[in-house]
């Protein structure tokens, strides 16, 4: 198990950038939300890579614990976010982010 941490961090950075591209170019609110999940996941990958790099030290396990918390927060975020999307769909009949412009003057 000897993968240089820099390679894993690079993969995590590339996945993060792909998530950013997804948020910018898609207009379906659910797909935008999934791209945000991709970004969260790439951050988790970076945490695990750093934990592996600092490994035998007991403090390295804090990286794993942090990923655990990130996953829990992501789960609650998804519950509230999808509820918001359902509520927006009820009033607008669409979840295209270009259509949701009620606040525009």
């Amino acid at each position, binding site marked *: 198990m000897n993968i240089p*941490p820099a390679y*894993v961090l690079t993969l995590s950075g590339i*996945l993060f*950038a792909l998530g950013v591209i997804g948020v*910018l170019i898609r207009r379906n609110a659910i797909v935008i939300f999934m791209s945000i999940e991709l970004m969260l996941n790439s951050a988790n990958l970076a945490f695990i890579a750093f934990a592996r790099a600092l490994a*035998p030290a007991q403090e390295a396990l804090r990286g794993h614990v942090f990923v655990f918390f990130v996953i829990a927060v992501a789960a609650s975020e998804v519950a509230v976010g999808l509820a918001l999307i359902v509520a927006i769909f009820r009033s607008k009949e669409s979840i295209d982010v270009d259509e949701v412009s009620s606040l525009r003057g």
Partner: protein
Amino acid sequence: MTIDLVLFFGLALIAVVAAIAMIASRNAVYSALFLVFNFLTVATLYLLLNAAFIAVVQVTVYAGAIMVLFLFVIMLLGTERESIGGRIRWQMPLSIVLGLALAGELAYVLLRNDIVQGPLADLTVEFGSPASIGRVLFNEYLVPFEVTSILLLVAMIGAIVITRKQREEGK
């Protein structure tokens, strides 16, 4: 080139291709399935990085629970199709160029850093096992753990309150 590196590059390729397919699919259901694929690939990477417990949590919570919720909402609303072409014509090419520039700069900076020098230490099975993570979680991080349970409860209540049908007023 060791077998680990071959495995890593294979998994990295699959993860990146799945992510690209996710943001490029016109149908939101395909996007969700490609994202599940990406999560499973990353879970395998966690196994390669001695994070067995996190790998299983990733599969059950992320690829299982969260993505089922996504698929459920996509199919409930029936909005998997998306009209092509945004209102701002130059937005998509500009976003792709800027995003690829970000990816390139991140890759450059991360590849030339020197956080860890020399070979990594050999680890026992104990590292990253449920027992070792539980020990850290319940000794050092007991309060955040309890706060997380409150957060999940609040999120649950919030989801119910937001999606509840508004009662007609003034009747």
